[in-house]
């Protein structure tokens, strides 16, 4: 059993950043933005938070590039998929007006 030296940054600082971002996102949602912009904003904040968790808590910053690639490729694919589906599911002119929440 070899104990290879692993760097340990100040995790508590990361945690404080996470808490701050949480507070920011709690405020951001009450700002008068359009729905699309709000979703975009909270997704960006969530992305920053998850990047923090991944880089420090999951040690991505200290891993070899292969592992970084394994972590990033699915994220790219997910974003690609989401963007590709937007025109069809959300902004499709032929989608009719069935969308409403309370049908029951």
């Amino acid at each position: 059993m070899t104990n290879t030296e692993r760097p340990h940054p100040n995790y508590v600082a990361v945690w404080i950043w996470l808490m701050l971002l949480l507070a920011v996102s709690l405020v951001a949602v009450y700002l008068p933005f359009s729905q699309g912009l709000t979703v975009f904003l909270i997704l960006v904040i969530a992305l920053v938070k998850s990047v923090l968790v991944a880089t420090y808590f999951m040690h991505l910053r200290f891993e070899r590039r292969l592992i970084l690639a394994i972590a990033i490729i699915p994220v790219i694919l997910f974003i690609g998929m989401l963007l590709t589906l937007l025109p069809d599911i959300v902004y499709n002119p032929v989608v009719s007006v069935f969308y409403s929440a309370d049908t029951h």
Partner: protein
Amino acid sequence: MTDHNVSEDEFQEELKLSFWYRYIFSVDHKTIAKQYLFLGLTMAVVGGFLAYLMRSQLAWPGKPVFGWPVNEGYIDSPHYNALVTMHGTIMVFFVAMPILIGAFGNFLIPLMIGAPDMAFPRLNMMSFWTMFLATLVMIASFFVPGGAASAGWTGYVPLSADPIYTGVNWGLNFWILGLALEFVSVLMGGVNFLTTAITMRAPGMTLFRLPLMIWMQLSAAILFMLSVGPTIAAAVLLLLDRIVGTGFYDPGQGGDPLLWQHLFWFFGHPEVYVILLPAFGILLEILPVFSRKPIFAYHIIIYSTIIAGFLSFFVWAHHMFVSGMDPRLSLPFSITTILISVPFAIIIFAMIITLWRGSLHFSTAMLFTLGTLTTFILGGVTGIFNGSPAVDIYIHDTYFVVAHFHYTLFPSSIFATFAGIYFWFPKMFGRMMDETLGKIHFWMSFIFFNLTFLPMFALGMGGHMRRIADLSRYDFLKPLQPTHQFITVAAIVMGIGQIPFIVNFFRSLFAGELAEYNPWRANTLEWVTISPPPHGNFETIPTVYHGPYDYSLPEIEEDWLPQNQPIEESLLSTLKGKV
């Protein structure tokens, strides 16, 4: 070459394990590969039988079908739909996947990279038994009240979302469950494959000394792992719709049926390459051995595969040109679709040029390889018709599509499988297969495969819809009835043509001629150990000195050079840049 005498002790050691641990709950990747192989071949018989039932109904609608157990042999439309669905599901997920990924991947990855076993042997065993369980669930779905799933292998919602539409309740739930288990199994396998190939390569086995089969298996595993997620999500939502009664796909409640198609095909198209790439891998291994030539443009084949793999995530909507999705999506997706044909065209050209100025030996494995190549080309070029949105308007959901994907999937999952079995059988079981029976098997399969599926292009041009249980309702289809009968007869003969294989397989298993280490004089590492390799594979882990395809080097006497054989110092300068 060093002589690999593995002493008696080793076999004694093997024999000490009880039957259960040796053959059933083995953690040896080779045993697991054989388990996958037998599972896949058994399911191929099941899937083939379903095809026979379907074909008989199509050729002689309204006549009882020999072998159909219920309703005095009459196949009614709901049952026909179930046959179609289960044939597709079984052939793709329970024949092609277990054999090409499970059997060949498991068997070859550790052997070809020079590793003693998989990175996670127990995970490997679990992967097989999950697959086995999935198979049982799938088989069981035939026998639950209401019968098996009948919403097509694509399970389009809302048809599959509510039992009132198909009358199938538990059959479809089992279908989803079986698929989910199968996905979990292949995911476990994929983790294992990737980790093994990344971390356990023998000394000297750099990435660009890997045999192409490994590259193909890895690409397939990556494609599968990254594409299957959304479909698992979609399937869970579907299951909740069916069991809990939520409305994720119910348009009345704000659901969108097209979303299922998007998420399904996001996986569904890469899945095609998950099957195709390992099949290409088999061809790319066999071609150089029987041409005694290096594979042409090894690096370009690898780059093409990577490009095609990446593109395959962004072609899915070409299955949906007429589905009612936003037509603005059609142009980008038709462009990516034609783009993806280029890397595959390049791989095919490379395979063809590999034959040029070779010294071709037509063993059964080579015949099946060439058979795959010739038929796959037809499947590939007919894909251009489907990829053109305009033509697709007419031929979508017709027999043209059926013919097209059988011309791609049948060669890649059946012919290439046979090629692989004939080629690696000596290594798997330590005995040679019979060449005469093999050649009979090849010509029966090849000729009658073409006679079965070539006429289907004509059916499709005639506007014949897929998944129609009885064409006699339509006047414009009635003249096509004799074609259907011709196809059915050809298909049955093709089925009979598999008997030589079954005979050959089992006879060789027990009474075939004993195989040497390297009966084909091939270069890759699996041939440097004894046949069949013992648990642990290699006496000593071989060291790799050069690439896998150094055949017919003009500077040396032999026309082959195993990967673990060092090159003499004197040759190094002349071979610089070559090996």
